[in-house]
């Protein structure tokens, strides 16, 4: 979950400054009535954080999204970008989905297509759902248990339906024995043994191992139904068949998308989606600076990608339109990680030396400061996740107000047997200017204690083959890797397991860059995953997080934040932890 907050802004800093000045100048013109209107009705800074801004049940109007980045796919089984998951709820439903509520409350799962939450039996290995009576496709036919099973099965056809998350595949069929519906020899193409559909209303999942987060995986678009005779395989993303409140009228990739009401959707069957606007449009444009301006002009309602207002427009927005802004957590952590296969990072003291020597304040500034960058993170579990503790500060980063602790760094260097420092390489994606800035900040701070770090910018589009390959990391001598990470689903398993569980070390596409493989940590994951009570699982994740900190393989920078635009026209706007701090799109409405 590292690429979907991709920002396309690669402007030279100079241009940004000039533009910022220009924007400020034009905003001060005073003749722009549109802007004044915008100011008058806006509900206030952070009005959409933790509460609902402009609550209303008023229907009608067109909700206008704008975006600079296209989704990886609008096919429910192929999309992996966070904004796609949020938007997909307009045209697709799942057995369960996230509660339409602000902030942390949104991570609670509520029934969607299912009449109630799962009946769990067999020690957490069987999940049974009964479907609601009045759920239907856009052609009026009912959504059946078989449709859900078929939709989920599509993920198995990785050679055709690539790109989406594969959690359900890993949990339901760990050995990948099923070959996917397109190679399925049974007449109904429903050959996956782990899912049973005794009738059109009942669906039963049989897990080989219990997994307390299984319902979280069923809340992903990847668990959406797909009607077999409407499945266009790889091309399904160009026009997914709707079972939600809106259907796709037109879509031209990278250009525009238009949705209108699906009159076969029955409001009484859906407690999650308010379906307020009559129509929804998405405009894709190239110029991110112009996009920010047009948001401020009131031409669009919000940024679909929610990457936050760009550097050029940020000052103007904060000065003149503060009431239209929300400055919330994204659930991401930005960090540096130390591969233990690269000397001297096999020695914990050398790793500690880097953590102590880092200037956390400067790293925060490089990320954009406390507002656009985020709060300094003292550990590796984001605040919205059960078990996190923003005050757990093992390396006294907060206590020191983010300043480097040169004394302790030098002590650690001595203990590591390198009192004069050492040479190493910082690997950073070349397509993320902000990450490059943090690499330079770290490089400068390390110089103060004698650590000579070279910054190596690698092809950011090739992460899985470069830093995702432990062999390449070792060969290139990447002692420090700079990355960011957000959870696919908001639990300790969803966030931390790919990063720190030794059984998740992969030869390609690896995310456990430090190659941490501590049986105690792995065991804690097993315990937490088997636990069906989220609060108890949270306690276990808390211990896991402490053990990760003690291993000193991560240097967290910030709990990521963005500054997002909320137009004055928007009603029911609130940010949702379940969707990485984006607005809950399914609840939004507009004033006409």
């Amino acid at each position: 979950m590292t690429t979907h907050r991709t920002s396309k802004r690669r402007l030279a800093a100079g241009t940004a400054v000039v533009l910022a000045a220009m924007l400020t100048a034009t905003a001060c013109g005073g003749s722009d009535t549109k802007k004044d209107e915008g100011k008058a009705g806006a509900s206030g800074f952070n009005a959409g954080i933790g509460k609902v801004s402009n609550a209303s049940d008023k229907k009608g109007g067109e909700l206008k999204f704008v975006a600079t980045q296209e989704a990886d796919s609008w096919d429910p089984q192929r999309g992996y970008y966070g904004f796609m998951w949020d938007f997909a709820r307009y045209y697709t439903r799942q057995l369960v989905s996230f509660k339409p509520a602000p902030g942390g409350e949104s991570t609670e799962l509520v029934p969607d297509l299912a009449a109630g939450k799962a009946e769990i039996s067999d020690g957490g290995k069987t999940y049974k759902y009964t479907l609601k009576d009045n759920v239907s496709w856009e052609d009026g036919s009912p959504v059946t248990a078989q449709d859900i099973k078929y939709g989920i099965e599509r993920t198995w056809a990785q050679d055709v339906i690539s790109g989406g998350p594969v959690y359900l595949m890993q949990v339901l069929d760990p050995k990948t024995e099923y070959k996917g519906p397109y190679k399925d020899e049974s007449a109904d193409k429903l050959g996956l043994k782990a899912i049973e559909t005794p009738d059109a209303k009942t669906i039963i999942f049989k897990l080989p191992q219990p997994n307390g987060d299984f319902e979280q995986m069923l809340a992903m678009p990847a668990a959406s139904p797909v009607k077999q005779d409407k499945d266009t395989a790889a091309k399904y993303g160009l026009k997914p068949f709707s079972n939600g409140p809106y259907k796709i009228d037109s879509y031209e990739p990278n250009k525009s998308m238009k949705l209108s009401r699906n009159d076969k959707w029955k409001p009484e069957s859906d407690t999650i989606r308010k379906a307020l606007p009559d129509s929804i449009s998405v405009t894709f444009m190239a110029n991110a600076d112009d996009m920010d301006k047009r948001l401020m002009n009131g031409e669009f309602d919000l940024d679909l990608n929610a990457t936050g207002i760009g550097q050029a427009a940020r000052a103007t927005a904060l000065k003149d339109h503060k009431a239209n802004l929300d400055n919330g957590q994204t659930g991401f952590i930005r960090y540096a990680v130390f591969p233990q296969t690269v000397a001297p990072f096999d020695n914990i003291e050398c790793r500690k030396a880097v953590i102590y020597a880092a200037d956390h304040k400067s790293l925060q500034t490089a990320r954009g400061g406390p507002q656009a960058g985020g709060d300094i993170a003292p550990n590796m579990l984001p605040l919205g996740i059960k078990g996190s503790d923003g005050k757990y500060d093992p390396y006294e980063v907060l206590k020191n107000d983010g300043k480097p602790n040169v004394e302790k760094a030098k002590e650690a260097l001595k203990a590591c047997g390198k009192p004069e420092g050492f040479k190493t390489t910082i690997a950073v994606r070349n397509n993320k200017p902000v990450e490059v800035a943090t690499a330079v900040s770290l490089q400068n701070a390390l110089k103060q204690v004698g650590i000579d770090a070279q910054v190596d910018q690698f092809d950011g589009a090739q992460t899985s083959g470069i830093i995702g390959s432990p062999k390449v990391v070792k060969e290139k001598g990447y002692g420090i890797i700079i990355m960011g990470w957000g959870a696919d689903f908001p639990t300790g398993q969803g966030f931390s397991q790919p990063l720190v569980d030794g059984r998740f070390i992969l030869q390609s596409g690896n995310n456990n860059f430090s190659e941490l493989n501590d049986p105690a940590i792995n065991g804690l994951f097993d315990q937490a995953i088997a636990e069906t009570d989220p609060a108890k699982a949270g306690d276990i994740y808390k211990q896991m997080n402490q053990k990760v900190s003690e291993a000193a393989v991560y240097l967290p920078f910030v709990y990521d934040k963005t500054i997002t635009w909320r137009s004055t026209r928007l009603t029911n706007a609130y940010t949702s932890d379940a969707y990485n701090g984006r607005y809950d799109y399914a609840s939004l409405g507009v004033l006409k």
Partner: protein
Amino acid sequence: MLAYLIRRFFAVIVMLLVITLVTFGIFFLFPKMIGTDPALYFVGKQSDPAAIEGIRQKMGLDDPILVQFGKFVVGLVAGRTYANGSDVTQCAAPCFGYSFKTEQEVWPLLTDWLPVTLSLAAGAVVLWVIGGVATGVISALKRGTVLDRSAMGIALAGVSLPIYFTGMLAIALFSDQLGWFGRPEASFAADPGSWFNGMILPWISLAFLYAAMYARLTRATMLEVLNEDYIRTARAKGLTEPVVIGKHAMRSTMTPILTVLGLDLGALMGGAVLTEYTFSLHGLGYSAVRAISDHDLPVILGITLISAFFVVAANLVVDLLYAVIDPRVRLS
């Protein structure tokens, strides 16, 4: 003349084939040589081995590069089928490839983007040729005056300011502040009036850059021509100044301008990248940038080929036009 045309036509075909081969090599051979797998570009975020293998089979990435190239060229003429077992994707002729990112054939995309780029280039070229040449001629005739100096000063600014800056400034001033022009969003078919209104700023921004260059070029050439003997002769035999300038001097001045214009136009057909980006015009240039950042190789390849075609074609047209403008040039 006919023999010349046939010869040139074949040269164009060969040139395009060579360009195709080189471009194809860059996109599909280079990644292999440096150890990255082109298949990785097409599988999205979750790079499951089955997904990578599926796309490799479908695109025939395991074939030798010349076989891949051969299939591509055949596809241009006869269409193509991408198949991996039962998973079959058809690409109708002329098949310029298939984007596995957006699951679309490349040729319809190119024909969708081309009119946008053409309309941008066409409007801008009219503006900059009229504006640039007129400014250049006037500057040359009024050499050393305030008029000349200020025109050339503006021209210098036009050449040196990046279009991202002038474009954004134009938007801020004429669109957001004064509200005279909209942004280029309406299509010509849907609403010609607002299409025209929206295209004015992109046209002006792009034309400003080129007009500046053309003004300087015209001025320099015109000054040179005015010193020629035949101009003195024309004046000596009592021709009026408009005839001397308009008929005799302009003809020689236009030759280098036409050369540059042909090449510029050819290059612009491949997309005015920065202008399209600044104004979010969905033409070839913007699509090329997007395709590059998405590593959408078939789309990049398609745009490269169509741009190359226009540059080569523009060169041919310029050569042919020489004979029309300058009787001294004979095509043989």
